[in-house]
């Protein structure tokens, strides 16, 4: 099961032929992209540069007030986006680490794409707390570094926990992603020449595929997977505590951590589909990404959809049984108040739209899955919007109630992150093997 076998001259054995086919399929997806592809990358780069960097520069120059946040809604779509992207980032760890530990075969089709998505999504997510700061240029004050003035950070603050949660997650994701890529870099190296060959060669860290290397590698990979798996629970739990630790009605609830984790997996699966279905088509990866595997992803999505649906319902019941007028007031307002369209949009996208996935035929229809995943992405964004904005807009003091509306700058920055995300993903799809070649080969017997 080493690359030597795969690179063997004789394509006589059907299994080795199949393995070679996988290798060729994946490598061919990395062929020099056409002008159209570059145009697309350029387009997203411009979106990123203008909509995000440009708008952010303007915001830093003028002040955070160019956004729509106000009294009492101090957090707007920046924090919505933060939670959204952290959520997206989740399925990466889930598919790579957790499914690896459970030995789920279908992970091999998606794990690379999911990991790449994770790394990029964490970058997107990580931008938002900075964009959101009133004085972004002092972001480093959030890091506990020794200094003469003996200023320290407040470890009671959930925002401080966030700093560690997100940075840990980014580090682990990058390391995990990279370690997974090492054997594949060695394969890619053989198919390239010139400068690229040197780069891939360096990246492969002298991988030869010897038995010892494989043994050590597998041990490291399993360890990393074991290390990353708890992060699936912890990172989004910490993100949920950004809210649950607050005294804000609608935030201050114990169900937030599991609710957020389920939501994150839900949205992560949806984003994997949104990315992989077109990629499968464009890069002609039908053989390495079989429908069966999409079906399994769809099942996960359906399952988590029901968890979040359950959470939506139970939140209402909990707030009703609390007998607390502040608590129930928020929930009643979500369903009937200023943001009712967002609320019912969320319910429709996250609870109703995935339900037909009980039908096997639909689960196996890629166009249907693609459309569903788009709805889920939208629905999960709305969920974060509903949680964050509605709770803040109607708290304890009626005089201080207020409604928030995102400004053009905020919308622009939001669009800009998508530009960044797709730009990075397109670059990934051309420069790195989008499917874990060695793992995929393991599937062939």
């Amino acid at each position, binding site marked *: 099961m080493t690359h030597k076998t795969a690179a063997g001259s004789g394509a006589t054995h059907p299994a080795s032929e199949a393995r070679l086919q996988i290798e060729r399929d994946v490598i061919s997806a990395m062929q020099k992209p056409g002008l159209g592809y570059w145009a697309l990358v350029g387009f997203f780069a411009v979106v990123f540069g203008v909509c995000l960097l440009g708008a952010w520069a303007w915001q830093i120059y*003028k*002040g*955070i*007030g160019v956004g*729509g*946040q*106000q*009294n*009492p*809604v*101090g*957090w707007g779509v920046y924090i919505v986006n933060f939670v959204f992207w952290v959520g997206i980032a989740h399925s990466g760890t889930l598919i790579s680490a957790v499914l690896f530990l459970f030995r789920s075969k279908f992970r091999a089709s998606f794990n690379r794409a999911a990991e790449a998505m994770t790394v990029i999504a964490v970058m997107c997510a990580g931008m938002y*707390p900075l964009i*959101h*700061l*009133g*004085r972004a240029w*002092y*972001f480093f*004050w*959030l890091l506990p570094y020794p200094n003469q003035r003996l*200023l*320290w*950070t*407040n470890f*009671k*603050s*959930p*925002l*401080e926990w966030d*700093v560690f949660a997100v940075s840990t997650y980014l580090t682990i994701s990058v390391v995990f992603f990279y370690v997974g890529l090492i054997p594949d870099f060695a394969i890619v190296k053989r198919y390239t020449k010139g400068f690229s060959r040197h780069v891939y060669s360096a990246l492969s860290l002298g991988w030869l595929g010897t038995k010892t290397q494989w043994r050590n590698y597998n041990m490291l990979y399993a360890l990393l997977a074991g290390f990353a798996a708890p992060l699936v629970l912890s990172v989004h739990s910490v993100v949920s505590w*950004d809210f649950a*630790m*607050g*005294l*804000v009605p609608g935030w201050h609830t114990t169900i937030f951590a599991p609710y957020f984790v389920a939501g994150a997996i839900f949205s992560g699966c949806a984003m994997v589909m949104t990315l992989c279905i077109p990629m499968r088509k464009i890069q002609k990866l039908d053989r390495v990404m079989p429908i069966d595997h999409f079906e399994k992803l769809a099942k996960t999505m359906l399952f988590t959809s029901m968890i979040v649906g359950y959470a939506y319902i139970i939140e209402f019941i909990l707030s*009703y*049984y*609390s*007998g*607390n*007028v*502040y608590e*129930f*007031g928020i929930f009643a307002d979500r369903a009937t108040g200023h943001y009712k369209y967002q609320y019912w949009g969320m319910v429709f996208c996250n609870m109703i739209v995935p339900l037909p996935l009980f039908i096997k035929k639909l689960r196996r229809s890629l166009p249907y899955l693609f459309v569903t995943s788009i709805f889920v992405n939208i629905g999960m964004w709305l969920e974060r919007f509903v949680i964050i904005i509605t709770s*803040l807009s*109607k*708290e*304890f*003091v*009626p*005089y*201080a*109630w*207020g*409604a928030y509306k995102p400004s053009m700058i905020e919308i622009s920055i939001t669009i800009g992150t998508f530009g960044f995300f797709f730009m990075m993903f397109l670059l990934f799809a051309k420069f790195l093997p989008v499917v874990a070649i060695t793992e995929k080969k393991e599937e062939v017997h």
Partner: protein
Amino acid sequence: MDRREFLRWVGVASGASVLAGCDVSRKSEKIIPYLVPPEDGLVPGEATYLATSCTECPANCGISARVRDARPVKVEGLAAHPVSDGALCIRGQASLNRLYSVNRIRQPLMKDASGALAPATWEQALPRIAGAIKGNGEHAFLSGRTSGSFSALVGEFSTRSGVRRLPEFELFSYAAVREANRALFDQPVVPALRPDEADIIVTVGADVLETYGNPVAFSRALARRRDRGGAFAWYHVEPHASMTGFKASHRMVARPGTEAHVLAFLLHYLAGHRSLDSRTMAHVNRVPAMSAERASELSGISRESLDHMAEALARASNPLLVAGGVSVAGDSGLDTAHLAALIQSACGMHGRTVDFARVTDYSRVGSMADIDRLSQRLEAGRVGTLILFQVDPVGRLSDERFEKALGRAALLVGVGDAMNPTLERCDVVLPLSHALESWGDAEPAAGVLNAVQPAMQPLFDTLSEGDVLLRIMIEAGLVPATTYQQYVTDRWTREYGVAVDEMLNKGYVDRGARDGTRPALRDADHRFTFDAAPATGTVLVVAPSLRWYDGRGESLELLREIPDPLSAVTWDAWVSVGPATAGALGVRDEDEVELRAGGWSARLPVRTQPGLAQDVYMVQRGVVAVPAGWSRASGEAGVLVGELSVRPTGRRVRTTIVSGSTAAEGRAPVPGEHPAHFGALGRIEKEHAEGHGHEPAREDVSFYPEPSYPKYRWAMAIDMDKCTGCSACIAACTIENNVALTGRDEHLKGREMQWIRIEPYYAADGSQADFVPTMCQHCDYAPCEPVCPVYATYHNDEGLNAQVYNRCVGTRYCANNCSYKQRRFNWFDFSKRPHPMDLMVNPDVSVRGKGVMEKCTFCVQRIRKARDVAKDEKRDIREGDLTTACAQSCPGNAIVFGNLLDENSEVYKWAHDSRSTRLLEELGTSPGVFYLKKGNGHDA
């Protein structure tokens, strides 16, 4: 590079950077060496206090101007002043804004060839005026109410120059009240009110807490009355909705124009229940009969309420009744004023609760009849030069005829501090100094004279009002060269027998009141006309404004930023509509309606006003120009516009309403109330409420150490009975703490900045309102503190919830987590203000840059100062060493501040009062602000 070369380069580099720092383009300023402390001059960093007078309205409260580095940075009520007793209202606080207003006229202006006003010099302007008044024709001088030395100077000017001194113009002229008192007692005065003596107060239309008379003095006296204890009730009758009405214990809404009917009923009731002398009875017999049924039917006030009020009034040993404001303005207004004066006389209020002796002098103030006569004379072309001195009849009146007539004068001379519609029409405009840049005096009440002394050099090329007039007289050769400073100081010694130094130190001279004898009732001759059926139908009430009085403060940014306490509207104009009327029209907040009456029309956004009667609409003076006419009988300016047609335009207009909701919404925003919890929690809450008293903080709940306060726990207590909602605290706080004025656009986005606010909450039926002043509650367990990742907000060992601006990175979690929503964020750099507003900064308080959070600090700078003083004297801070800006200004004495650990402190007593409660106590935040809930038994 060796050591020597390194040093060489360091030398070159530092030399270069020093050179680069020498910016020659900047204006060079002298640095004052401070080897010998100046004897009576400026001590940098040290504040001095100047006792002077407020000139924002005829009440003329005494003020103390805090001067830092040769400019006033704050005005406060002058302690122990005989009229205002250390308090100051919202408009008085805003006088600092008038001083530093961007709208100030900076030099004399004269119309050029094209007819536009162009900058000129005093040397050009004065001869022009002097020449004109010496020329042929009849010249006239019109001013607002004058008093003291300036009034004397105007008299001299008039006699010497022959310029006719017209009756002074005040929109709030009290013409009906004065006319009634003239007819009945031969004393055309506006009596002063003494609510501190009263056991029953009945106010009819008079907004005694907002604009009527001296609201500061009234609030102070009311607070004294409450302190005294004992039963007392306050009935208020009004056709519209006012803050005063909602603060009364019984608010009764009369149909516009039926206040006379209510008073006639009261008078007849009194005649039946009290023994009145024959002369009074002769008056009573001339009043058309009015039964309770008929009064109730016509006014719309329930029979029970009327009987209740009449009984209380008849029983009272020391009642106070006053009619004024919107109720004496209409056609039956003079009747209303007459009836009120008769009741005052019949109940023996004179000399006790209604004072004819220590009154504000309105004797030279004219009425609308005088303006009408002026219009006629102008139209006839009989006025040559007209000097309009610190008066804006065009802006106040919206009277087309007068505006047109003004154009007929040969020369219009305007004198004022900021451009207004009257000055825009003038040929010559002379700029006035602010009172804080001027010498002068003012007479708030008979026997009291306030000094007006300059706290700074004039900012611009302006002169004080006395100097303007003197310079004109000198130019015309009427008097030898002198200054107004000379004039007033001479007069103080001559007329009042007070040494100048004493006057300047004390700020006022009080020669005592005349003997308060009861005015003698004259024979009856008034013909009452009110019984002709009152006008029904849709009516627009043009109400006085708490914030800009008759409209004069309308251009001040500070007042624009502060929400109207009833509607919570800041910058915009609006029309108040009762909930029932709004429902019938199918409009809600921010829907635009078109109001039309006669030839006048206006489009305004709707703001629903609970408590406003059906088919009654209300706008505020100043921001909406309504030609409301005037009463021929009394000369009082009109406030009612009848035959109003209202049509929704279908448009939505975004309006600066800063409140989310003015209903309790099932929550408990009013101190002493409990949220409408339901289910099991509801039962627990109810039991808890019935068992009352605070639940002691449980000691075992927190993982973290309890806060400890070794010496001080700064705390505040607010009496909800005494708080009137007057918003003076907001103005005081905003100026003291350099709180940013964010402007209309930011208010539309919900980004107001004030650190203290008045939250109005109305009962569901609109019958009652609570005005809750809230600020940072400085909680023991503040929700804002644990969520800040960088310790920019923390708890200090004196109980302050401190905010470190420099450390703040702007996550805004603290604001989200504040249950009281008291934190304010600097969305932009709000600290830059246009000149000269940039001078309106308190140097003791840092201005905040963009991206940081701020909020009430309990005036920490004042605590610092008090600590420094105490330390120098080797002692601790004592009760009375300091108070916060809001508490200092409060006319109702509703706020106390101090050390909760000091058992002799006022705040300790209040906090341990049986009425003491705290906001949202069930959250366990343990605030440092205590509220004495309403209803201490006085308002029975």
